């Protein structure tokens, strides 16, 4: 398990970029952490690390956004997903095994549906307002 401390959204994004640059395809990155924790900032960085030029916005309403860079990126938001039927209707299972990268915000809501191999990224608040402690578990070094 790796542990990182960031003190601004920019630093969280830079961490994401580093993670994105090392991705090989097929990874499921499960993000855990509440509102304003930095999940979308990290995802923005991951997208940049994958060479995706356009901006990344939160998929709260569309449930999933799709981007194409060095690898395809499927950005899910499970905030409104409450049942297996909801989860099926997002197409989540169709995206697994496509060779693209899945980034899943609000993984808390679908924890039992995550594949064993999922990389778990947890956000915790630190001492100051902008400080975040980000732990990454299950990522190949």
């Amino acid at each position: 398990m790796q542990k990182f401390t960031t003190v601004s959204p920019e630093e969280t994004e830079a961490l994401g970029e580093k993670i994105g640059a090392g991705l090989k395809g097929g990874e499921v990155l499960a993000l855990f952490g509440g509102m304003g924790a930095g999940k979308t900032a990290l995802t923005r960085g991951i997208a940049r690390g994958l060479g995706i030029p356009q901006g990344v916005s939160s998929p709260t309403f569309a449930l999933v956004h799709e981007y194409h860079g060095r690898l395809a990126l499927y950005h899910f938001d499970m905030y409104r997903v409450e049942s297996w039927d909801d989860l099926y209707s997002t197409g989540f299972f169709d995206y697994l095994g496509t060779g693209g990268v899945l980034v899943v915000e609000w993984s808390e809501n679908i924890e039992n549906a995550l594949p064993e191999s999922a990389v778990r990224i947890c956000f915790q608040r630190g001492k100051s307002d902008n400080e975040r402690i980000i732990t990454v578990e299950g990522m190949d070094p």
Partner: protein
Amino acid sequence: MKILAVDSSAAAASAALTQEGKILGEFYCNVGLTHSQTLMPMIGGLLKNTRTDIGSVDLFAVSTGPGSFTGIRIGIASVKGLAMPKNTPCIGVSTLRAMAENLAHLSGTVCAVMDARCGQVYNAVFRVDGKTAERLVPDRAVSVQALAEECKKYAGPLFLVGDGAGLCYNSPWFEPLGAVLPPETLLYQRASGVAKAAEEAFREGKAVSPGGLRPVYLRPAQAERALKKKMGESRK
């Protein structure tokens, strides 16, 4: 009767045009791209290359599941859109029934299986006699182990078909059954199989208006489990 048939229920997608059992054209892609981007150009190319006016199609057929959630919706929505202008009759076909057509020339039992993840498959079983496929059980979600147990009672030889065929074939439960794994050319559902199954369903009076097409979703047993982990159950 001209039938335009479409399948986009799993990783591959295909479109076929048939007339009185003859396949006038078929377009098949298995490159894992999103069907929302590939299916319509395939149908367009098929019509163009067979010099067929879409208005001359008498019946639309589509596999309505089981299969991938988004794939099934793309197939049905596409066919609905094509059929609605002239209110052309439509037939929804079970994906498992359609793939059984691949092996209808054999004699024995066809076990149609699609990978539903977590050791589960979508399955139906058919008796084939060299000409037709007779359904023995309804489409359902079942574990590979339970299916192997059930298959012991069917008359051999046992032929597997579908994207779950390899999964079953390589499982320890299927090993003693001596099941046959067909070659790639016969392994997956095809739009021409959808057309063939639709022809039969049409004769049985099962055609519906475009608006009457409905997806058929089967849930694997994992749906019984809670989706969210309970407090304390979660790993730290």
